[in-house]
């Protein structure tokens, strides 16, 4: 799927997109070509190719040890790639040390200089720029205003709160007006409430400055809300690149499907292939399921079928259309805005079904209760076929 098409598809599904300032046919602002990093015998990053547009918020998403931080550190200039090149704005950056790159980083620990005030921290990067003293002062003031820390400018880092420290780190990194800002787990150290608020603040600041952001995170929700596009990484490799919608609704592998959100995954075998849909035999569901077809399917082929919990509907009566399977409610958890059901099929397989509590009803009136016999069903478009 080419990227222009991906944006259109995503847009039509109602997902708010960060404005993309560069058209897809322009040369890519950041190009990572065949980058590999080995530490001794361990390969941290393996042959990564990535192109990032100007003004994007791009996320590198993955578990710990997947190579995302190493990739970020190579962009910053702290690690040298074993193989491959890195270009920023058409310039080859691969051999430049960190202090000569137009790139700045916001560290996971914020790395504020403990012996300098907030103001001095923000001004530090400017002392290497050719600027007048007044110009420097103006820039610092502007940055502090941007992150709303003007009144704390004379405090030292240990005299302000965690959220404020994060904003100092951001202001300090942006003060040099870098072509690229790297953010290493920018929200990890904040508590949950502050994290949501800060997420939007980050997007707002990115919008104001137009700087290209690359965010490293292990938190999929963070990646999905923040970024215009994201790359899912595993074992030093990129598994999928796309918009949040792409990777959530159209995962290209079992790994990506399982990593982003929760999913019910089944072994299946293709029985027949149609134009729009294909039929697959799913032993654990005790029958044939109709699913959206993907390229290169052949009858008889072994495959995986996946379906997200929120795309499954529970009902007392057998629904008239869609894939329907009978089961028994084994467990249910009420979360307020939605409920999670664990339903066992006749073969003993337990699947997860999540249903939004759209109406206000008491316990007696809910769709199903413990040990109720129910039907669960899903549309063929909800069934994802995965070859790997």
């Amino acid at each position, binding site marked *: 799927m080419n990227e222009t098409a991906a944006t259109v598809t995503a847009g039509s599904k109602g997902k708010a997109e960060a404005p993309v300032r560069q058209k897809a046919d322009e040369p890519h602002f950041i190009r990572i070509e065949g980058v590999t990093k080995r530490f001794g015998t361990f390969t941290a990053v393996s042959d990564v190719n990535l192109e990032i547009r100007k003004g994007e918020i791009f996320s590198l998403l993955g578990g710990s040890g997947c190579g995302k931080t190493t990739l970020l550190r190579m962009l*910053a*200039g*702290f690690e040298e790639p074993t193989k491959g090149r890195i270009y920023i704005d058409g310039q080859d950056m691969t051999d430049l*040390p*960190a*202090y*000569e790159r137009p*790139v*700045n*980083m916001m*560290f*996971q*620990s914020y*790395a*504020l*200089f*403990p*012996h300098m005030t907030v103001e001095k921290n923000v001004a*530090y*990067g400017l*002392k*290497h*720029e050719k600027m007048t003293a007044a110009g420097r002062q103006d820039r610092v003031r502007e940055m502090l205003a941007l992150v709303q820390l003007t009144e*704390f400018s004379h*405090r*030292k880092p*240990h*005299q*302000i*709160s965690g*959220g*404020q420290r994060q904003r100092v780190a951001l202001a*300090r*990194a942006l003060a*040099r007006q870098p072509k690229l800002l790297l953010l290493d787990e920018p929200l990890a150290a904040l508590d949950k409430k502050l994290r949501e608020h800060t997420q939007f603040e980050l997007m707002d600041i990115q919008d104001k400055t137009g700087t290209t952001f690359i965010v490293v995170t292990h938190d999929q929700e963070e990646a999905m809300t923040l970024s215009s596009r994201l790359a899912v990484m595993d074992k030093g490799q990129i598994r999928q690149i796309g918009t949040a919608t792409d990777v959530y609704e159209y995962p290209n592998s079992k790994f990506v499907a399982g990593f982003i959100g929760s999913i019910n995954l089944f072994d299946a075998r293709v029985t027949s292939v149609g134009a729009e849909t294909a039929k697959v035999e799913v032993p654990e569901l005790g029958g044939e399921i109709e699913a959206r077809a993907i390229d290169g399917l052949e009858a008889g082929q072994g495959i995986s079928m996946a379906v997200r919990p929120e795309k499954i509907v529970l009902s007392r009566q057998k629904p008239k259309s869609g894939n329907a399977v009978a089961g028994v409610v084994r467990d249910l958890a009420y979360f307020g805005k939605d409920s999670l059901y664990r339903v066992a099929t006749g073969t003993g397989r337990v699947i997860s079904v999540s249903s939004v509590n759209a109406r206000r009803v008491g316990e007696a009136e809910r769709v199903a209760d413990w040990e109720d016999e129910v039907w669960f069903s899903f549309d063929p478009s909800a069934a994802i076929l995965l070859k790997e």
Partner: protein
Amino acid sequence: MRQRPVFLITMLCFGFAFFYIPILSMMVYSFNGSRLATVWGGFSVKWYVSLLSNRQILKAVMLSLQIAVTSATFATILGTMAGIAIARFKTFRGRTLFSGLITAPLVMPEVITGIASLMLFILMAEYIGWPAQRGVTTVTLAHITFSMVFVSTIVHSRLVQTDDSIEEAAMDLGSRPWQVMKDITLPVISPAIVSGWLLAFTISLDDVVITNFTTGPGTTTLPILIWSKVKLGVTPDVNALATIMVCIVGIGITIAGIILTRAEKRRDLDAQLAYQANK
């Protein structure tokens, strides 16, 4: 409820009595009028008076201070470099030997360090011709060597406790490695450097064994002078000298303690500020 640890408090009292009774006894006897150091002969300050007019002791004090300041300064420079090297550079050729070299002198018995240094200096004089004679130079060189590892230990342990991404952050903000060292690393570890210098200074000022081996004729530091006096037994003027030294150290430690307590109070206040900033 936490019980009052009666046994532990008793042990603390006993321990501190053990620590301080000998010192207090020595201080009291420094005011003894009698020539016999252990028999009380009335209150007198005559030993202090004779001490202050003793040119030999004053000369030894000046020499000790000179050696201590020089060696502490060089030891601090070398020890800081060594501490940074071992804490920040994870891979370089010979790192294992290096880390051995900066810990071994800490635990090497002084007698061995002493005769080893002496043999080195004699052989150097024999084959290189420098230092031609044993004296201030050789003592200072030996002091630098064994006190620099104390400095490097202090600097190292301070560095492993600080976030090393602040150095990367400075580099990321355009500072070259040397500027990072000057702007970030050195200011952050400056308390460790100061206490390293003080420790090196004290170690040098206090050293008997290594100085005894590496010194030459005419170079008598204060500990060497005391050493030669106490080998002959207890004398009242050494009591007086010891009292003065204990008082100087006591005042120094008290000042350091007040500074530390202040710093602790400031930290509490800062934490409060940070908490209020949240609102």
